[in-house]
């Protein structure tokens, strides 16, 4: 019987396994192989070389790698700072489940819009003749328009808007799962409300923050269109991969991709070692 059940489990999983195999595992293995092949004018030659990985050491790419992870890290911090209070309010201060659903829905509304439209909409807001500059000048805070577009802050603002929900939702879920008696118990054992938050609520919501961080990290590291549209002159690994692939230097693009994957997986490993994600489910 046990074998029968095991078999049926695999049968149930098989569509997912086949799909993941064809569209994720095989391309990934190909990517790794590709990163060790020699670039040519038409794409690649199946000749082994370390050349692609050696090129990663060039100052320009070192710079791109540093910028990529700095930008992503800053976005994670900003989304975390804003998402946590929202999630907290939603989980504890909004009592009726109806209102909770309504607010969650309101937060999702911007995502009913297409990525390009939603992103391009920042131009009339952040631009030289945009909403914010008009407001600043009307208030007399500045005499000439401030350059708000085409820098790292612009990229972070756009990413924040695009990904804050992916940070907020897992934190909200983690907070909702915490037994309210725990905070009462801490208070009754002599903890102030701040101490109770720090020692009970915060550590118990850590899995939510970790999942949110993973979402935001993965999404931002690979998001090159936003960098291209809002960070004129800023070079990131994602953008470099796109450029190298456009230039038909596929092996080098593959090596860059492998680097990103290794760094992200490394980060996951560290996070999972220290935080028990099972608490979330």
């Amino acid at each position, binding site marked *: 019987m046990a074998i029968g059940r095991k078999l049926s489990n695999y049968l149930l999983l098989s569509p997912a396994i086949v799909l993941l195999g064809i569209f994720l595992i095989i391309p990934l293995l190909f990517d790794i192989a590709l990163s060790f092949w020699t670039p040519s004018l038409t794409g690649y030659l199946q000749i082994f070389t370390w050349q692609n990985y050696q090129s990663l050491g060039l100052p320009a790419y070192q710079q791109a790698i540093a910028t990529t992870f700095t930008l992503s890290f800053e976005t994670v911090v900003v989304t975390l700072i804003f998402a946590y209070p929202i999630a907290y309010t939603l989980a504890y201060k909004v009592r009726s489940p109806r209102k909770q659903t309504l607010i969650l829905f309101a937060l999702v509304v911007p995502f009913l819009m297409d990525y390009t439209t939603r992103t391009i909409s920042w131009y009339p807001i952040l631009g030289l003749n945009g909403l914010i500059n008009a407001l600043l000048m009307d208030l007399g805070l500045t005499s000439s328009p401030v350059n708000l577009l085409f820098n790292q802050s612009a990229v972070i603002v756009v990413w924040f808007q695009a990904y804050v929900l992916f940070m907020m939702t897992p934190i909200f879920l983690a907070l909702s799962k915490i*037994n309210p*008696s*725990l905070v*009462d*118990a*801490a*208070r*009754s*054992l*002599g*903890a*102030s*409300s701040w*101490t109770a938050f720090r*020692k*009970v609520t915060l*550590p*118990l919501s850590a899995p939510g923050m970790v999942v949110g961080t993973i979402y935001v990290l993965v999404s931002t590291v690979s998001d090159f269109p936003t960098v291209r549209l809002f960070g004129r002159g800023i070079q990131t690994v994602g953008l470099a991969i796109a450029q190298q692939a456009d230039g038909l230097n596929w092996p080098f693009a593959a090596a860059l991709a492998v680097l990103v994957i290794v760094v992200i997986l490394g980060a996951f490993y560290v996070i999972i070692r220290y935080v*028990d994600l099972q*608490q979330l489910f």
Partner: protein
Amino acid sequence: MEKGEFYVIMGPSGSGKTTLLKCIAGLLMPEAGKIVLDGVDITDVPPHKRNTSLIFQDYALFPHMTVGENVEFGLKLKKLDKDTIKSEVKHTLGVIGLAGFEDRMPRELSGGEKQRVAVARSLVLKPKLLLYDEPLANLDYRLQRKMEEELKSIHEEFGLTSVYITHNQEQALSLGDRLMVINKGVIEQVGNTDEIYLGPENVFTARFLGEINVLNGKVAGKEGEFVRVATEEGSFLGRGHGTFEANAQVFYCVRPEKLRVGTAPPRENSASAKVVTTIYRGTEAEVILAFNHENRVKYIAYDVTPGTFKEHEALNVHWRPEDAVVLSEVSKVKDIDIDKLIYGS
């Protein structure tokens, strides 16, 4: 409340027990009234400065901390030195029967062990007031009985003033020095546990604290210290508080264990009845009897062998006048359905 007392607050669900306890702990703000501890008004003192500690029905152990970390939580906040904390935790876990459990995680513990840790976590702080919120409700029956004994001996050893809320009459009777019966936020009766059991002031208290047979009747007169009540099944004598007007509608109540059966009828309080059914409970048997006019009463018989009471067998039931109480009040709360409150809906 007196210092060192084990005070039980008892009431059906929805009676306001937990609300009252949370107000004492400072987790809820009372809309009116004052909370005074050791002569000091603590109504506006935040919970962490009250020197009270609440033990929860669902244990509320911190799942991300070990047993040791849970127990030392409050001591660490008091900024005691490490050695003192360690020895206090060790001592308390020993008392509660969990010596050596310091490094276990709460999820590895059974329900009873969890509740012990919860008790230890509060006990270790030696609060002025230890508050129990139905701590045994989630445990199975045998474990409840065992924990009752343990809580009682812990109370004797530590001498901490305790408030214990429950809807379980056995726990109320076995643990409490004093007892408060509440119903829908209203105090029905306060007194020593045995006084309330033997001398309930109204039908709600009488029925909520243990089982009792109730017959409707009318006051027929006073005979010395007793009141005579005319019921459908005859006229009986019983103890009555206060004054009773002639012909007033009253309830004549006798506890099942106070009934006697026998062939030689005594002078007072006897009636003939038939056996309806018998429920064996091991050490005792509950015998349901029907009087001539079909009013049913329960009789508790001890040390019976199966077949002692046969269905439809005619018996003579009698009881002493001092074992019966005559009550005129149903409850301090108007218009209540006692059956629904006692048995749930």
